[in-house]
């Protein structure tokens, strides 16, 4: 399961951290309902459930991506698009009294993971912009220009690295680290719908691609600076997941 998790842009650990942030902001009523469905005392344990199901259904691998049109708008109705998957899962949870326990469980786990997925810049595809699907670029240490110090890197893998350097944190401690500066933005971030959220991340993607683009040569320092965007996206995902669940379970 852990190995499969590495295929996600935020990696399994990143999803666990997003779940830990969301755990911090669930209402008492939502906690009771969510933890009862999960039969757990937090969402972290189930943050990689969708990834663990990929071997059972190939289409599940597509759920992590959200596609925007050429204008950066989420208008798709494709059933395996991340945004559409979130909308369907939320609908199941709203109708949970008429659905089977297993479907309710699967839908909740889907929300926990896919809300995180559509917040990873590496998972946003913009129609007409092939670079958003993945590309190679070169990074080097900014000090020595020898060939051995120039490393080939990839757009999607770049987003892995930020969570990788925090692997020795627990998800809860990493969540604390991210919230130090971003908690004050919670009210601003949690607004909107899943479609708006994907479009919001799409804006970050367009901005990032001005500096890191196919065949670009950038210093590690540039790549490190993008960590702020990664952190912001993770915090947004956590706050938005909590807001969505609080809305679904408010009654």
């Amino acid at each position, binding site marked *: 399961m852990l190995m499969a998790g590495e295929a996600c842009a935020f990696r399994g650990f990143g999803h666990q951290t997003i779940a830990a942030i969301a755990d911090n902001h669930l209402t008492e009523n939502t906690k009771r309902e969510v933890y009862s469905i999960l039969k757990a005392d937090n969402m972290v344990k189930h943050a990689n459930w969708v990834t663990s199901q990929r071997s059972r259904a190939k289409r599940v691998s597509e759920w992590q991506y959200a596609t925007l049109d050429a204008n950066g708008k989420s208008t798709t109705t494709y059933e395996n698009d991340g945004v559409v998957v979130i909308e369907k899962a939320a609908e199941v949870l709203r109708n949970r009294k008429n659905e089977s326990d297993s479907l309710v469980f699967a839908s909740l786990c889907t929300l926990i993971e896919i809300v995180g997925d559509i917040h990873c810049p590496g998972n946003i595809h913009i129609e007409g912009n092939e670079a958003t699907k993945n590309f190679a670029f070169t990074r080097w240490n900014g000090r020595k220009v020898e060939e051995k110090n120039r490393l080939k890197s990839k757009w999607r893998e770049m987003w892995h690295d930020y969570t990788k350097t925090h692997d*020795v944190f627990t998800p809860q401690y990493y969540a604390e680290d991210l919230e130090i500066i971003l908690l004050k933005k919670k009210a601003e971030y949690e607004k909107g719908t899943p479609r708006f959220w994907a479009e919001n991340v799409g804006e970050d993607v367009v901005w990032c691609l001005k500096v890191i683009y196919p065949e670009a040569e950038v210093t*590690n320092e540039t790549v490190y600076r993008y960590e702020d965007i990664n952190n912001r996206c993770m915090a947004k995902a956590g706050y938005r997941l909590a807001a969505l669940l609080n809305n679904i379970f408010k009654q």
Partner: protein
Amino acid sequence: MKRFAIIFCAFVSVLGVQSAKAWHNFAHGSIAYMAEQHLSPEAKSKCNYYLRHTLSHYASWMDAWRLERFEVVNKSHASMSMPDGINLDFKSGDPAGGVMGHLVNALAELGDGKYKNLPDSVVRQRLINMAHYVPDMYCPSHVLFPESVHPSQKAHKLYEKGKKLGYHRFWDHCLGREGRVKWEYEELAAAVDKVSKKRVAEIQSGSLEDWGRDIIRLAQRSIEIVPMGTDVAYMPEEQVAAVRELVYEAAVLGAYRLAYVLNTIFADKNIPVYNDKK
């Protein structure tokens, strides 16, 4: 005990792939985590304000940055030089007395409430640096003894399964090794941070001169515990235990003193440099 022995064996088997720098990144993160647990509410709040992250997040920043901009961060941030081997004069020697000189300078800049007069970015950078080099000072291999005291320090070679292994490299990675077997910061901190209140009071007192002497004692013990020529892959259990005891003590000193430095700065106080009126 058993766990450490297993971990330690695992460590020596992969030591060859480690790079030579200060405490391993994992050790730095764990020590910073430990320090964070002992910050006063005021210091915690101020650190959050300036750093915008936890101390652990920045614990290895200086090592990472050294690879980017070597001219800004140099070796003097990691080692303590002893020009004559007896007197600790932090204002002389390899620039401004090595790492202790940096701490003296930082406290002069930030202590007694002076941090309030500095731009946020300057305070932030000083905190990032201290989160790294205060624990680094306690790494047993970071004292550069003059030849009159330890003529063989540079030649103090160890072995690992018959292959040469640097004394510096061995000690740098002793504590960090736990991270390679999926420990998290909090687990290592829990294993190491078992200090009595009395000991904490001892650690968090005295002058920087006293702290410097603690560092020298650690360094001297490291040479006695693992003498030149030791094959670290085949150390008896008692020797492994002595190594563990030393690196845990170093971690505790680094963590509690980092916390004390930050608590002192944000209580608008300062730490004396010398015991007497030099």
